[in-house]
């Protein structure tokens, strides 16, 4: 237990040193940080962008900004969370550049229930495929709310939309996703 705590402290110290060096444009330190966080961040970008190459492009843009603004990181909160927020913002700017986001009209009733009946045999790739099949506006808001944990007012502010629009998009996204997962479940059960 003690060894585990010591290991965590050492990792934290190492990371602080790496960040300090990376701020001074030390390429080796930047490379280590990149190697540490790039796989996770590429996965994050992949939630939103279905094309892996484009997702990597977004991730590289995100890391470029990470190293550019690293001096502004105050060691408050987790470093990974800070990078992750940058990645999400980069994804939003990617969508804005493409001007692809279309948000449907608001829905008055959000009372439908969603059941946690995802089959355990369903793999991540299959879930990702279901998310990829969502319209981009739905996908963006679903990922921001359900995976990143943003609140509706934060999402509305970041995407420059109404809070109600965010709620309606999430509702529709979940509904569509539930249907797709149900289909997937039935296929899995049929296979079994």
């Amino acid at each position, binding site marked *: 237990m003690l060894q585990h705590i010591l290991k965590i402290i050492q990792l934290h110290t190492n990371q602080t040193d790496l960040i300090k060096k990376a701020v001074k*444009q030390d*390429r080796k330190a*930047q*490379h280590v940080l*990149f*190697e540490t966080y*790039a*796989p*996770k961040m*590429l*996965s994050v970008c*992949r*939630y939103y962008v279905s094309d*892996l190459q484009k*997702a*990597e492009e977004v*991730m*590289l843009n995100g*890391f*470029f900004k990470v*190293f*550019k603004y690293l001096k502004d990181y105050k060691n408050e909160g987790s470093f990974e969370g800070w990078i992750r927020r940058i990645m999400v913002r980069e994804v939003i700017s990617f969508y804005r550049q493409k001007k692809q986001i279309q948000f449907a009209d608001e829905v008055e009733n959000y009372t439908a*229930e*969603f*059941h*946690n009946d*995802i089959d355990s045999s369903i793999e*991540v790739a299959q*879930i*990702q495929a279901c*998310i990829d099949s969502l319209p981009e506006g739905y996908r963006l808001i679903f990922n921001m*709310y*359900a*995976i990143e944990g943003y609140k509706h007012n934060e999402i509305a502010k970041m995407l420059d939309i109404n809070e109600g629009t965010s709620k309606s998009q999430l509702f529709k996204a*979940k509904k569509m*996703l*539930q249907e797709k997962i149900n289909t997937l479940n039935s296929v899995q059960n049929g296979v079994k």
Partner: protein
Amino acid sequence: MESNKFDDHIKNLLDKRSIEPSVNAWSNLEERLNSTKTAKRNWMLWSGVAASFIGVLITISVLNTNTKVITVVEAPVEIKEDIINSKENSKENTVATPKPTIENKQATPIYVSQTKNNSKATLNKASLTPETDQLINKEPKMAVVEKDLQEIPNSTLEKANSIKITYKDEAESLLAQALQQTTSSEPKSSTIDAASLLYDVEVEVEQSFRTKLFATIKENLSDIKTVIVDRNK
């Protein structure tokens, strides 16, 4: 509640995943980072070059300003030399009178030619003295000039003093020369009418020459004063 579980389940599934970036991902990023660094360096280099260029321009303009002032102040020295030379030669008086203009601040010599009358001129010392003394000892004007000169830097003051002395010396040398001419050309015979000769000289030769000379000196003095006043502004 069920809704939250649905979200959490998907989140947990996706959070476990990590995707390795392509092999050249880091090299691409490094290239971008390096290009930014180079651009920054280039920007700093160019701004340094621009700053030094501006500095050189300012220095040149300051030096030019100083040179212009010196040109204006030193210009009257040419008068002295020209006048003395012309007086010494004195067959045909060509007086080089630099006329400094404030706009371009360059001395533009104006040559005033005067052919002396071949008749032997005689100067009456008494007739010359009051006017010349008046001109030389222009105390109020010189006092103003001296007062102005006290307010300007020492180097310029010394130059200005030398000019003042130059004018005095010039006037004195002219007087001495005139006196010498007068004494050397005293009428030996009693048949020459001194009054008529004097009248001739007064009217035809010396009057105009003297007037022009004094006018030139006055003009230069006023130019110097203008320059000094402009500088003090």
